[in-house]
């Protein structure tokens, strides 16, 4: 559905365009050449990132035992956390986009399905959902396998990482659907009407006219969801995924130093979220046209 044009428009939304300046003088055209633009002022909140990073580095440098050891131990968990967040987020955007379109669909069946999805999923805690996918869903799959005598299903063993992604995507997709719905609805009806009056289909109008404008509106709440997701991935530690949090717990269980472990883990999460927040703020600045 989101075809080449959609992504090109997406690129346009994110590309830097200083229209007001362009009118006044020809010089700012240089802005489109990489490196030729006047130095962009650094986002002042980067200092907070710097302070937190410095703090973490100092801890590890001054007291390598246990801080550096903790870091070495949880590093693979950190990779899992980042990976899990990134992969889930891509699918969350896709599910959210279709969910949002479903919520505004005129077709009553599609609208009904999308609404039920959003309402049900939003009503169940994420932790419960993750546990359900890890412990309950495999039972259903095995039962079905037994009934239809299909061994591959009957012997299904839960893959923790895969089911964690499924759980996160299904849950966050519902929230994302509402964000997309609101974003699409915030674009004036006249835009769709003008597009349709030119003979463009509903899908073409969505892809080339409404969604590129809606992205601008939804960027802040979508960024918010990303940071929430990053933190909520810590819940997967209870369903056998060796993420940052679970690795921290394992280290603590072996060495009995909760203060050091959880301080460093907290700092690592904080660095991840602060950097994400800066990146989102940068995107928001770029998307202005």
């Amino acid at each position, binding site marked *: 559905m989101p075809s080449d044009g959609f992504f090109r428009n997406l690129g346009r939304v994110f590309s830097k365009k200083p229209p007001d300046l362009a009118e006044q003088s020809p010089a700012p055209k240089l802005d489109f050449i990489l490196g030729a633009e006047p130095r962009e002022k650094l986002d002042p909140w980067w200092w907070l990132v710097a302070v937190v990073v410095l703090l973490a580095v100092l801890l590890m440098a001054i007291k390598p035992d246990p801080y550096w050891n903790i870091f070495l131990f949880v590093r693979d968990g950190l990779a899992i956390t980042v990976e899990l967040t990134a992969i889930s987020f891509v699918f969350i955007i896709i599910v959210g986009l279709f969910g949002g379109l479903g919520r505004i669909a005129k077709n009553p069946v599609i609208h009904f399905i999308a609404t039920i999805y959003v309402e049900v999923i939003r009503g169940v805690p994420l932790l419960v959902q993750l546990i359900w996918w890890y412990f309950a869903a495999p039972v259903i799959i095995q039962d079905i396998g037994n009934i239809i005598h299909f061994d591959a299903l009957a012997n299904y063993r839960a893959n923790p990482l895969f089911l964690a992604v499924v759980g996160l995507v299904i849950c966050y997709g519902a929230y994302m659907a509402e964000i997309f719905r609101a974003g699409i609805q915030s674009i004036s009806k006249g835009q769709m009407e003008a597009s349709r009056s030119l003979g*463009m289909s509903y899908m073409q109008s969505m892809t080339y006219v409404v969604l590129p404008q809606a992205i601008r509106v939804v960027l802040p709440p979508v960024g918010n969801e990303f940071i929430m997701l990053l933190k909520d991935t810590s819940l997967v530690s209870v369903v056998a995924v060796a993420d940052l949090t679970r690795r921290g717990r394992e280290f603590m269980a072996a060495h009995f130093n909760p203060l050091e472990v959880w301080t460093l883990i907290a700092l690592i999460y904080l660095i991840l979220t602060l950097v994400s927040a800066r990146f989102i703020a940068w995107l928001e600045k770029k998307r202005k046209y």
Partner: protein
Amino acid sequence: MPEPIIHIENVHKHFGRIHALRGISLDVKIGEVVVILGPSGSGKSTLLRCINHLEVYDHGTITVDGTLLKTAKDINVVRREVGMVFQSFNLFAHLTALENLTLAQRKVRKRSKAEAHKVAMELLEKVGIVEKAHAYPAQLSGGQQQRVAIARALAMNPKIMLFDEPTSALDPEMIKEVLDVMLALAKEGMTMVVVSHEMGFARAAASRAIFMDEGQIVEEGKPEKLFSSPTQERTKLFLSKVLQI
């Protein structure tokens, strides 16, 4: 006698409990310029929007360029022949003036980038705004936006142009620049249906003026005649109010 390009017969439209159109019948021939006027809520915009099926009528028939709208397999085929200009311009806010003109040409008419670009630049030239080709709608005045919107509709080479109160949202000093474009278009022989209270435009360009009230056509005739000696009381009352301004 040439077949009418728009044939409207006994059309009814309800919005919930409001009976917006009550049996409208109207024919528009090729090359005709029809101006529709009437008080707000009289159904004139609704009628216009029914012609390109932005509003779905409940009852009756509308045939545009030989296609019956109700049973049209692909309404987009009809719409590409019917340009529409809105009161609130509705230019695509994220695209430049030029891109506003090329988008539908490329996606609907399947023209090449170069061809769409050429058509767009010619039309921007025609509406006198070529120097703003790379400006975004927010950087244009209302009059400029509406001229781009007209050019955007023309870029599809429509057979019919619909104007829904094209000057109502404009500051007074910008009305003329838009009317001039519309006048030029009428002179070229474009078939136009215009919802507007611009008497000057109606006098200069319209082959027919239609007065609507409460979802019905009350009176129609040559603009001169309708404006100077209306026969219906409602028309007289309305015109006396409009002309006072």
